[in-house]
């Protein structure tokens, strides 16, 4: 039977079209779930074990949005002059002289990571 080449290289015979080639099909999109503002969202890598009780682990990925104004109990990223590194803490624990780099909106924890091993 002759192949129909018009469907993304998937061979299709006459009859019901293969739904996998329909580009309009909606799928679950993690960007949509995790990123409210693409322009202002950056990813960080969490370091430290002190928040394991709250479900945040060393090596987790942090989704950080600069567009949000930090308030209340927000978790924020700020530059720690003394340590010469970025710090994560509750807004209340951020020193007065520090300025907020962005608001942490989610962390991603992978139990079995298929990304390359982290250094």
């Amino acid at each position: 039977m002759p192949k129909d080449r018009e469907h993304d290289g998937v061979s299709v015979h006459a009859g019901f079209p293969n739904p996998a080639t329909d580009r309009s099909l909606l799928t679950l999109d993690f960007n949509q779930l995790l990123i409210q503002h693409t322009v202002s969202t950056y990813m960080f890598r969490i370091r430290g074990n002190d928040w394991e009780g709250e479900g945040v682990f060393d090596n987790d990925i942090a989704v950080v949005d600069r567009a949000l104004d930090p308030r209340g109990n927000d978790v924020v990223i700020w530059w720690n002059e003394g340590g010469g590194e970025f710090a994560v803490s509750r807004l209340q624990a951020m020193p007065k002289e520090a300025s907020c780099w962005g608001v942490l909106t989610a962390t991603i924890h992978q139990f079995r990571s298929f990304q390359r091993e982290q250094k």
Partner: protein
Amino acid sequence: MSKNSVFALIDCNNFFVSCERLFRPDLDGKPVVVLSSNDGCVVARSNEAKRLGIPMGAPAFKWRYLFNEHDVQLFSANFEIYGDISKRITNLLTTVTPRIEVYSVDESFLDLTALGIRDYQAWGRTVRESIMKNVGVPVSIGIAPSKTLAKLASEIAKQHDEFDGVMSFFGIAPAMRDDLLHQMPVGEVWGIGWRLAPKLRAEGISTALALTHMRPQHAGQLMGVHGRQLVAELNGTACHPLTREHEAAKSIMRSRTFGEDTNKEYVLESAIATLTSQAAFKLRREGLLARRIGFFTETNRHKPGYRRWVRELRLGQPTADSGQIISLLVQELGQAFLPSQYYHRLGVFLYDLGNEDALQTDLLGKVSTSKHDRDAARMQALDHINTKIGKGKIYYAAERLAESWRPKHQIRSPRYVSSWSELPEAKII
């Protein structure tokens, strides 16, 4: 020509340096210099580095003592970050108005004519603050009735702290306008290059203000149509509308200067291989195929006996396959190569580009689509490996050449925004 136009130029301050500082806030207030990754020349300077007198384009090795003495932080250009940040700014500006011309990686023109903005200064401040807050880099904004004036305004905004990064030629007192234009050397005006500036100064025109007073005929005699328009633009008549978004690449070129001049054929071969891989990768990313391919190579332009060779081929079947292009170009090199010559630079170019859909319309012709599909699948797998494992994992000898003359302490910052394994780290406190 239009009298009622309103243009804004959004210009990132020391853009590459600002991108590096976004992830290294400790470098605020310190001299920072970004070097081209290819030949170690200065491509961006922080204000502190400018004040040390380090010129743009300077070769790093000539300035190494000053770098050491003043503890200047050196970075080699990390275009993955700069490109990402640039795209964020463009996206943000597009929400302000779709009438945008991305002029370069760190400059965009906006056409504000139809927006009905009352207070341009306030508008500019809002945009500037929004880019700072959302994206995280400082910009200067110039607003004026023409692109040339808008460009000048952004320069003024950068130079005079009292403008706070935003300068508008609307609603400014004529005396102040003249004063600002008088302070601006003629060579700083957009479109006046290093060749025109001395010519104008010889005529006694040494400032932007003097340029505005030029009679159109005089400007035309001295600088052609371009000069007449330039003077009109400076006087507030727009001659240049926004340029339409640049179309898909018409050609792709990658070139490299060798670490030292070489008469070794294998060095040229590996350079062809490396540069072709880069160029073909871009080709595939844009979904394009090249019908013509070629390379040029030349001896050192500054040495006697300068020579340049160009070879090109027209392919029977357009391709984006690195391997195929490499082998064809290496064959060509075999015929052109002269062991008596010391080669300084080599470039690979791909042009006569079309998209893959165009190939489909050729179906009935002599194009073999099954071969194309096989090639495409193979290249897709290769690109997948390259993006997944990380660039530079597989490299050719030629890429190593550059190492020998790179300053030792010059570093490329991590790929903070393009590699999951190089994200900035944040410590739980």
